[in-house]
């Protein structure tokens, strides 16, 4: 039951994001568009490139989808609305998200095309940039909650949300989450202007539909993680907990989508440099600040 509800919420959010994405590209707000788009993808031919690494080519979109769903499975929508409240939930998120990289590399290698391959390796090249900035802010969050359990992390924010308690961590995590979901302006592996679609470039038909769904789901999962870690999860007045979770998640997800619209794509070298020179030290500072706060404030 819980599984069904969470999956439904995930799918619903993905649908909403697809509507918004459609609005951004076509200028029309059409609720049925994702449905038609999905059907149209089913109707299109699903081309296999000439000499693919078949295993990787087929597995990549599915792996991406599975990873996003697995990540969602350990995030609570409400105190008891969680598929698996793992004892190491906060770490599990990291583990699941690490496989986004694997999926992208597989999608890049699989089709045997230059653009896709460069895109895949690019994403790997950016690894330090985003993965450290996912892990280290979560560390600070877990420090405050004194637990890796995601429900405990939300409970720890009952009085004060983490976005206020550790705003630095929130900013870093939000940026890193966008980079991990490779949304604009961090869409380096799929850059259209540079790579003509990159890792997406060779997928068509059903496979493309799965890939698109997976990417939207990934955004939802990351937004949900942001909500759980920084926006107080289900906490909020009046409305039932699940509603708060959903609203916050969607707000974060939509803002992730919108930000990219108003920014040019970042230079890879800049992203790397800023993450090393600025991001990682700031993440460490964040950990220290949180540590001090925990010690000083009872």
């Amino acid at each position, binding site marked *: 039951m819980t599984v069904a509800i969470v999956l439904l919420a995930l799918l619903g959010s993905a649908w909403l994001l697809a509507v918004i994405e459609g609005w*951004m*590209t*076509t*200028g029309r707000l059409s609720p049925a*568009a994702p449905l*038609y*788009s*999905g*059907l*149209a993808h*089913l*109707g*299109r*031919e*699903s*081309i*296999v*490139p*000439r*000499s*693919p*690494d*078949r295993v990787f080519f087929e597995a990549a979109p599915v792996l991406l989808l599975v990873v996003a769903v697995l990540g969602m499975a350990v995030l609570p929508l409400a105190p008891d609305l969680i598929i698996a409240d793992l004892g190491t939930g906060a770490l599990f998120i990291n583990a699941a998200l690490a496989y986004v990289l694997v999926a992208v590399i597989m999608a890049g*290698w699989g089709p*045997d*095309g*230059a*653009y896709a*391959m*460069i895109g895949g*390796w*690019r994403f790997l*090249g950016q690894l330090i940039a985003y993965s450290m900035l996912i892990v280290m802010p979560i560390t600070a969050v877990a420090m405050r909650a004194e637990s890796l359990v995601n429900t405990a992390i939300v409970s720890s924010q009952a009085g004060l949300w983490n976005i206020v308690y550790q705003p630095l961590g929130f900013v870093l995590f939000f940026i890193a989450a966008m980079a991990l979901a490779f949304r*604009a*302006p961090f*869409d380096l592996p799929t*850059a*259209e*202007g*540079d790579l*003509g*679609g990159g890792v*997406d*470039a*060779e*997928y*068509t*038909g059903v496979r*493309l539909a799965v890939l698109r769904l997976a990417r939207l789901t990934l955004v939802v999962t990351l937004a949900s993680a942001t909500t759980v870690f920084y926006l107080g999860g289900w906490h909020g007045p009046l409305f039932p907990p699940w509603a708060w979770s959903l609203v916050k998640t969607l707000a974060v997800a939509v803002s992730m989508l919108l930000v*990219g*619209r*108003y*920014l*040019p*794509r*970042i*230079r*890879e*070298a*800049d992203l790397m440099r800023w993450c090393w020179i600025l991001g990682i030290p700031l993440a460490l500072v964040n950990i220290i600040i949180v540590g001090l706060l925990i010690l000083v404030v009872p």
Partner: protein
Amino acid sequence: MSSDLTINSTGARQKRPSLLQKLVSRALARNLSCLIVPGPEVALAHGLDIRAAGLRISTTPRDASVLMIVGDISEKMCDAVAVLYAQMPRPRAILLVGGQTPSTLPGADISSGLSQDQLTEAVGRLERAFADGAFVDSPEEFDSSVLHARIEYVCPMHPEVVEDEPGSCPKCGMDLVAREAGESTPDHEHHHDHEHHRHEHEHYHDQEQQSHHDHEHHHDHQHHHDHKHQHGESDDHSEHEHSGHDHGEHDHSGHDHEEHDHGGHDHGASGFMSMIEVTKDLPRSADGLQMDWLEVPFGPVFPGLPGGLKLTLTLDGDGVTEGQATSLVGMATEGEGSEESQESEGSQESEEMDADTFIEHLASAIPLAPVSYRLLACLAIEQAAGLSDDQATTQARNSALERERIASHLGWLAQSGRQLGFAWLTQRASTLQLKVRDAGRDRIAELEPELRTLGTRLERTPLLKSRLKGIGVLPVDSSDLRGPVARAAEDGGDAWARLWQRLDEIAASLELLKSGEEPELPVLRDIGNASGTGKATVDTPRGEARLSLKLEHGKVKSYKLDTACSHHIDLVPKLVEGQELGDALLAVGSLDLSPWEVIS
């Protein structure tokens, strides 16, 4: 134009009895995305608003269901278009907007004229065609000669053995390996051999030829070798096939595994293929590692570049080691009898052409700046005819030129937005371009605030400066710079400076328009039956263009055109060398090359 509104059978998909089929067809019709050839900027320059017409613009053929061809396209582009069509997933359709069906394609499904109304109406027909005819009983293979390369069979060990049929080598008995004729010959030092994946042709659909957007396959060594081995794992003798790299000088003779079994220390004598041998000939990257380089085509229909421009980059990972740009749509010596270019400058000796025809010809050959070239032709002819300037006409003409300058720069901004993944800029600039394109003086005055805010917004956009600053710095000794590129050269000469130069020019043109006459398309004044020679120079949006021509009895005998882009395109190799891929493309983009104005 098909009356029954179905998709032609090379584009439709096999019909399968299914209840869903009807629904899927409807969905397909509601979800049309088009790949625009030569490029969205051409459609914009023609004043077509694709989005308003109800089509989604797709950047890759893999994601497109409609191939939209705007205007007439050159011979070379026809080949590229056929490849793009082949790459699109079925069901797919061809939409011709104001042009002829390219020879390499099956007939157009829908054609329309070059106007927004006609386009909208054509899209409606297209939707019906998809709803009714996306699935047919017997789809045909799309087959065009450009998709085929002759396959020949070579012995991996003996490069001199080349056969037309598969079989075994007469010298050593090894199985022959298929490769594309005319491809790499085995005695090159090192290059990117493309042949190793060719014999998998029959395994998949008819589409899979090309690495994306172009019909040349450029995979790097390890990549497809790798795959090939995967395919070969099941049968033993495929082992032999793999030995045939074109490192011809290496010793492949002893594949006998037994020899290695005892430690293999005597590798000099055994069949051990040395990695040192393999890597010693490879080029060294900037970081000193010997890596395989990859030659990748970008274009002629590439989302980040103006359509018709083909950039061939040699990539070392994500870095560009060298690059070259060619134009596939340039003012080539098309049609018109026996032309020979006399000089590299691009002169054309065509058959006699009526003066008006000549003007039309020139204007339609350059869709990105038709007014400028129309003006240029008019001026040159009038001078040849000995007509003196007429104040009012000149002012109106100049206003039209300034208006086109604004529109053209907006088009460039939209194109930059596409390249930078900056959706807002693309949308804003193209909307404005459509409005400015044929606006009167009052309308432009109304649009002025919007145009000016564009600059302010760009100034305030985070990341934009760090993205553009220091990109595409022109070499100090570059000569023959013209137009915005030349004017920005004093200002640092990078992409950022060029962006601001163009924004400033938009502002300056606005001022000129405000004080000038109502813009009016240049029309040739009556020249009668005059003869003579004329020369004119017009500062087109991309830089000065010069035209000299010879007029005989009111007909253009010969002419010589010199454009800015023909010079700018030569800057490309220097600009991209040693840059990261994204930066290199941005540098090329910042030149605002119009492949149409490149004289080949």
